[in-house]
């Protein structure tokens, strides 16, 4: 699938709110905290909409105007670093008079964040490269657009 901007947004929205939510629910049980993983998922989703604009601009610099799997992974790493950086940006939250990133438990460890993020990312990426084409027959010809 060669994504368009609309396709990126729609596929991200669909995958994170279905498979992503299901995996997050499991991590909620494991962490005995449903609020933090779901809030993190929403941060990934909403920041992702902005990241997608940047990815789309970079994509337009390529002759094939494609987005190879390696770039998906690179983007995934950047998105994780941004959210984890915000979780740990205590100086910023102190200036704003907040205890931490809103909605996120200040006791969240990197291992917990990484386990949750990586599981969601790997499952959604694999689904995007495989079963999405089977479930939605037209998806691959529409740049990832579902609606």
């Amino acid at each position: 699938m060669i994504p368009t901007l609309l396709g990126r947004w729609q596929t991200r929205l669909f995958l994170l709110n279905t498979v992503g939510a299901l995996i997050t629910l499991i991590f909620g049980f494991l962490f005995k905290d449903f609020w933090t993983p779901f809030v993190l998922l929403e941060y990934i989703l909403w920041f992702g909409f902005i990241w997608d604009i940047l990815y789309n601009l970079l994509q337009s610099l390529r002759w094939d105007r494609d987005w190879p799997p390696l770039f998906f992974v690179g983007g995934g790493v950047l998105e994780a670093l941004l959210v984890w950086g915000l979780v740990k940006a205590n100086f910023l939250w102190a200036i704003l008079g907040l205890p931490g990133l809103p909605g996120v438990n200040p006791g969240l460890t990197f291992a917990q964040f990484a386990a949750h993020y990586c599981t969601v990312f790997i499952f959604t990426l694999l689904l995007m490269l495989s079963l999405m084409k089977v479930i939605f027959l037209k998806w691959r010809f529409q740049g990832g657009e579902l609606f």
Partner: protein
Amino acid sequence: MYPNIRPQERGGVAWSEPPLPSIFAQQEVSMAGLKQSGLPLEETTYLAIGGGIGSFTWVDHLLIHGVDPSQIVALGFEAKPYARCRRLCCNSQIPDHERLRSDSGGTPDNIWGWPGYAVREIWHDLQRGHVWHAARLLWQIFSEPVLSEPFTPKAGHVFASVDREARRIGWDNIRRFGHVRAIRKTDDGRYIVAYSPTRAIKCKPKLIVASYVHLAVGYPGARFLPDLISYRRRTGDCHRFVNAYEPHDHLYHHLRQFGGTVLLRGRGITASRVIQRLNEERSYNANITILHLVRTPKSRGPQYEYARRRPKNHFDHQTYNFPKSCFGGDFRFVMEDADDRQRAELVDLWGGATTAKRGPWEDIIETGLNEGWYQIRFGHIDRVEPTNGKLTTVLQGHSAWREETKIQTDFIIDATGLDPVPERNPLLQDLLHTYRISKNHKGHIKVTNDFEIIELQNGAGRIYASGVMTLGGPFAPVDSFVGLQYTAQRSVESLVRSGAPGVRRLGPVRSMRQWVRWARGVRP
């Protein structure tokens, strides 16, 4: 029309065609009159004309969308849907073990495009214990095209997969031998098709009536430029000056034994293949040299918005015949939204004579240039004369001083491609003449975004087209496996919307169920 080319290369049959029934002189045929005439008549709902991979893909889509196989007939020359494609591949130096220039997800045996050929090859490797090769392929599909060369399937794997799908859908019961002579509208909103049912000379044409017709007749033949035709007419020699899509293995055998010089024309993927083959022959006989003739130098590639294609050694490189985005990204939408003139411009800009960027090919060119056995010349062939068992070619340069160069070579291989002109296909020529169907700015058959030929609409009846005959239409890479899948999908969706009998929408649940049936090898 195609001098000294074996009948197989024109589609498989040498004809001495008996006349068609007189009703085919009219634009619209009366069904009542036809039934009274006593001519044997057969009826079907869906008719695929061509019998190649384009027809096969359309039939596969119809069956998976719920159509009963007894309602479908496919007419063509060859028993195997890929027979002509394979023959042209072999002639142009892509035997079964070599890799095509096709995306892993271009799967004519699987309408979903997943699993692609890369995943299947990894799976087969693992089953046979070739773990290292499987790991390499996995890395390749993960890192392509940034750190690795793009994966492309082996020709033999593609053909074997089509065989498997053909068995699954019962292709042998749907396909029959038929050389389609003419198509006419009927007065009850259908189409009557006349076809010759056997290879026998003087065989009376048979008639079949269908409500929905799909045309996928492929290229009319190899492209024979005037200099080649003129040479053959004058000399009768079709061994020294050949088209790369003709069988020409004799030339490589001769070179292996005696060495010699080859003038190669064209700079597309076929030229790259021919150079690869000549380089292989050089390992048996180092006395083989290549003179590569291209019309103009290529130091700067085309630009679209912010991106530019970068040529090397006067070859224009891109992964497939069009940028990848044309197959389903932004460019597909750009193409669909463009008008006829813009589409033609985009096809010229994005397409053209390009070859794949492959390390071994670049190494061959670099080595050849350094060692002197591969050289590039710019210009075009003015004339070719036989001289003492060799060919003397007069090259006309394109420089301001109009330089003429005489060179002597043992062979000339023309790798400028296949002939896409619709008028060279008698069936399309008849349709163009009878119904005045429109052509697009590229000179091919004009189709709607659903690949319907609008002038042939007849009440509820519809005629769709796919493949190179629609080049310059709403989808750029029509002449690709993905293109055939896309056009089949669009036309079948159009049938669903128009309420055609038996075709049902393939929603997520039905799509998954049908895919599971495909994976199990069970009939749709």
